[in-house]
């Protein structure tokens, strides 16, 4: 038997009589669960925005923290130096002659 003949014999001759009813039920079910396409787009955009904001926030927080840490370190060392050497520092500004005047 030829290939074409064999395949033609394998063809479906009759469709399921309930298939249209099944299709209608599926379409109705889909309608009930229908969400507009724009909703999907909006969700994706919102997700992108959240990711971007998170990234920006993390960047700002880290850059600020390092700046603050640097400033804090600078300030505390300066303060320590000043408290330890306050009079010496002042003394540098006043020539000794002034005390003996």
């Amino acid at each position: 038997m030829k290939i074409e003949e064999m395949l033609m014999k394998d063809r479906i001759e009759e469709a399921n009589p309930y298939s249209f009813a099944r299709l209608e039920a599926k379409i109705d079910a889909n309608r009930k669960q229908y969400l507009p396409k724009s909703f999907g787009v909006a969700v994706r955009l919102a997700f992108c925005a959240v990711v971007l904001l998170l990234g920006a926030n993390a960047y700002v927080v880290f850059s600020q923290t390092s700046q603050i840490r640097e400033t804090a370190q600078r300030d505390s060392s300066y303060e320590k130096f000043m408290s330890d050497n306050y009079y010496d520092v002042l003394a540098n500004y006043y020539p000794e002659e002034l005390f003996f005047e």
Partner: protein
Amino acid sequence: MVVPFIKGNREMEDLVVAKKIAQGDKQVFETFFNEYNLKLLNLCYGMLHNRAEAEDLVQEVFIEIFNNAKYFKGNAKLSTWVYRIAINKTISHIRKKKIRNIFIPLENIQVSDTDSDWNEQELKLKYLKAAIDSLPAKQRTAMVLFTYDQMPQKDIAEVMNCSLAAVEVMIHRAKKILKQKLETKYKEIEQ
């Protein structure tokens, strides 16, 4: 007064049908469904070789047609548009489920004890289906449309968006490959 481009009778009919489907006209949709259901079922069955799966896929195709009928512009025949949707859906279904891997390649099919219960024709058909599955997607589509759907080669060319000569070549090559692959297997069965 400038007369706008008037579409042909068939094109107008197609547009009206698509418009009515988009509007949810149940009667038109049912008529349309009855016209294409068996054709699409044979197309999907020819590609998948599984009736239940083919029926589910045809339902999905009709849902897609129902949802997208409003986008049909009449640039191609409605039947062409419908077949293109069905073919794309079937091919993506095959890709998604990797049916190619699930199907047993022809080389691995051996005549087992249980196969001896099958009659010769059934066994030959089983090998033939496995051989069809191993064809490249385009040849397979053309072959299925030609045999299962009994579609004229001119219409196949329109559906597959290629020339008539290309379809002739595709079908010729597909038959040649199938014959080559099946020759030894058929001899085994006949022995």
